[in-house]
């Protein structure tokens, strides 16, 4: 065969193969139709009566204390119900995020999975009908009484996936997170400052620290998302909570371009322009920033409660934590949330068992195990607080925010692309490339584009 003939045959074969594929079904057509809530079905709560069963659980509790609590709780579950075997598959947060999509759409899906609350994960799964609405079990087990509404809403979606923060319960979280301010006690004392009791006092303290030649705020933002945890509390202090919830959950009815949001963005831009942050925040590692606090190179570090353990290791009793409320004495409105909720897949063979397992790992005893292993239990937090140290501050702040204040959603939950939009825009705002108006416009474009398309 001549070379040209060969090429022609190959090209023909390739075209034929391609045509064959294109005529084949569209991607995703093998996915199940969204399942209707199975109301009226009788719920079996007694696991001992379920016979020999294997429960497959995919979690991301890989780090020290996280892994410890999961191992303990799984062992306790198996000990209580010898007829059940738990098959645990544990991956890092990043890995789980990548594999879950494929696992859920495959034929051999796990029973219980930990799914990130955000729209691009849990929301997408709900929309595709791959998670089971748990309302019947919530009623049977009394989950709505167990969890404060402000916490439970993080695991609630409408069954079509359009509304986030209301509707059916799709999962339960074990732990909480709250974004606030870490500080060095010695540093604050040397500046003659008290722990700020409200937001105005916090802003004043920052200004005083700058005047006295200190770096008031530490931030490492090369990863793009850390600045969101600085902007979140600012927004919480200046914008009504209902508006932030709509913006954060990606539900229609609010606007990024409101005067309050613009004022919040302006505050962050001013902080950056006045040199309140360490130099070159956009080129600084997240980890490098908190390490600066341990070395006494700054006064305040705004960030999430997950840093408490590392900071306490390095600074001991010197580190403290607070979440400044808009008005002294009230609960703060600040960014936070829950750990990844445990959800039940639509393909599970035994939803009753899966729900019983989720109930077991979030009950009162489980909260104690979580606290004992150094995690921040999402319920009865203050009761489990240690006697002293930064963890006591964190536990107290979380309890106060969830009961008296408002726990505000992470802003990147809102739309599948909001993580990029928020990260890019905050870097621009900190750099002075864009002003507060352009920032809110960029955010509004993403938010409005998504909510209108719903």
């Amino acid at each position, binding site marked *: *065969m001549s070379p040209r003939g060969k090429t022609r045959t190959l090209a023909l074969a*390739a075209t034929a*193969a*391609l045509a064959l*594929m*294109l005529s*084949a079904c*569209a*991607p*995703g*057509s093998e*996915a199940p139709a969204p399942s209707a809530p199975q109301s009226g079905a009788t719920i079996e709560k007694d696991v001992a009566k379920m016979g020999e069963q294997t429960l497959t659980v995919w979690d991301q509790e890989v780090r020290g204390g996280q892994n410890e609590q999961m191992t303990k709780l799984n062992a306790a579950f198996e000990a209580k119900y010898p007829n059940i075997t738990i098959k645990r598959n544990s991956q890092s947060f990043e890995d789980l*995020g*990548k594999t879950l*999509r494929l696992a*859920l*759409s495959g034929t051999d899906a796990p029973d219980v999975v930990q799914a990130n609350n955000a729209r*691009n994960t849990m929301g*997408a*799964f709900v*929309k*595709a*009908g*791959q998670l089971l609405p748990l309302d019947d079990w919530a009623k049977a087990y009394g989950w709505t009484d167990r969890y404060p509404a402000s916490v439970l809403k993080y695991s609630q979606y409408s069954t079509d996936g359009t509304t986030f923060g209301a509707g059916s319960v799709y999962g339960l979280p074990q732990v909480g997170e709250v974004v606030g301010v870490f500080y060095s006690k010695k540093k604050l004392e040397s500046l003659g400052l008290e722990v700020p009791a409200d937001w105005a006092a916090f802003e004043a303290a920052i200004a005083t620290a700058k005047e006295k030649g200190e770096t008031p705020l530490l931030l490492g*933002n*090369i*990863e*793009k998302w850390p600045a969101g945890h600085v902007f979140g509390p600012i927004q919480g202090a200046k914008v009504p909570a209902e508006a932030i919830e709509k913006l954060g959950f990606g539900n229609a009815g609010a606007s990024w371009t409101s005067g309050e949001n613009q004022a919040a963005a302006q505050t962050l831009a001013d902080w950056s322009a006045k040199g309140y942050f*360490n*130099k*070159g*925040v*956009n*080129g*600084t*590692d997240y980890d*490098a920033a908190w390490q600066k606090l341990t070395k006494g190179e700054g006064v305040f570090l705004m960030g999430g409660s997950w840093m408490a353990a590392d900071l306490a290791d390095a600074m001991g009793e010197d580190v403290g934590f607070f979440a400044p409320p808009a008005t002294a004495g009230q609960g703060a409105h600040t960014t936070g949330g829950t750990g990844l909720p445990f959800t039940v897949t639509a393909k599970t063979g035994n939803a009753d068992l899966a729900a019983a397992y989720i109930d077991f790992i979030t009950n009162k005893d489980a909260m104690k195990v979580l606290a004992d292993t150094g995690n921040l239990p999402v319920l009865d937090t203050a009761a489990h607080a240690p006697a002293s140290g930064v963890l006591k501050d964190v536990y107290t702040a979380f309890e106060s925010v969830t009961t008296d204040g408002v726990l505000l959603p992470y802003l990147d939950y809102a739309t*599948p*692309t909001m*993580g*990029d939009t928020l*990260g*890019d*825009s905050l*870097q*621009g705002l900190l*750099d002075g*490339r864009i002003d507060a108006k352009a920032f809110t416009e960029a955010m509004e474009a993403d938010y409005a584009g998504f909510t209108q398309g719903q």
Partner: protein
Amino acid sequence: MRALPRASSGPGTPGRHTARQGRAITPYLFIAPAFIIYAAFMLYPLARAVHLSLYDWDGLSLATFVGAGNYTDILSDTRLRAAFGHAGAFIFFYAVLPCGIGLVLAAVLTRAKARGLALFRTLVFLPQVIAMVVVSVAFKQIYAPDGLLNTVLRSIGLDSLTRAWLGDYVFSLPAVGLIGSWVSTGLVTVLLLAGMARIPTELFEAARLDGAGAVREFIYIIVPSVRAELTVALTLTIVASLKTFDLIYMTTSGGPGSSTTVPSYEVYRRAFETGQVGSAAAIGVTLTIIIFLVTLAVNRISERGA
């Protein structure tokens, strides 16, 4: 191959017909095992990617057919256009700059007859051996606000030049690009050294007798002699530059803003994080086509010039 059966079965023999038939199939049978594996792991995924790129799909629910929509988005989306632009800039840092440095370095090493050439070759090649992730982490430290580079600048009184290199809207792209140059230069130099070793010394002697200096030697003897090696080096480094992912993922995440994002990083973001699988596939296919065309062009130009 063709000569063999003809010798065994002469014209007019009864077995001729079947032999020819066998001749037609036999080569393909030999190719088959490799081809099947290649098709299963290369051609099928490629076709599948092309297929996916025609849909708007979140990776979970039913996809909707959008035809060339994902491709026109690449042209209209400023972020994606910028990503391809950055990949273009990386061709300079990964391929052009290292080839320039490599040519001079290899020429000097060859002609200077330096002692310990083997050691030098190893040192220059070392960056190629280190995993890109390790290189990225190391350079991230160097470029940090309190990093080595700024410390050196401060120590020589150039405080005004210090900055957060990877967080700077203007300098982050060259900063990341130069990491690529550092990695590529070794490969290019070693390839060119091999090519230059084959140049007969008589050529240089003749040139010297004709009164040529080092510069003329370089232009008229060395560069034309290593044309083939240069083509290989350019092809390899250009492909590497357009495919860059790990470097961006580890250092800047495409930031600040979107000033260092590249197509491969956008593919990853869209496929795994933002649920835009169709768009990710379209970027991937476009990138494949661009890489194919650019390497084809490099090879054509070098062939024509030879």
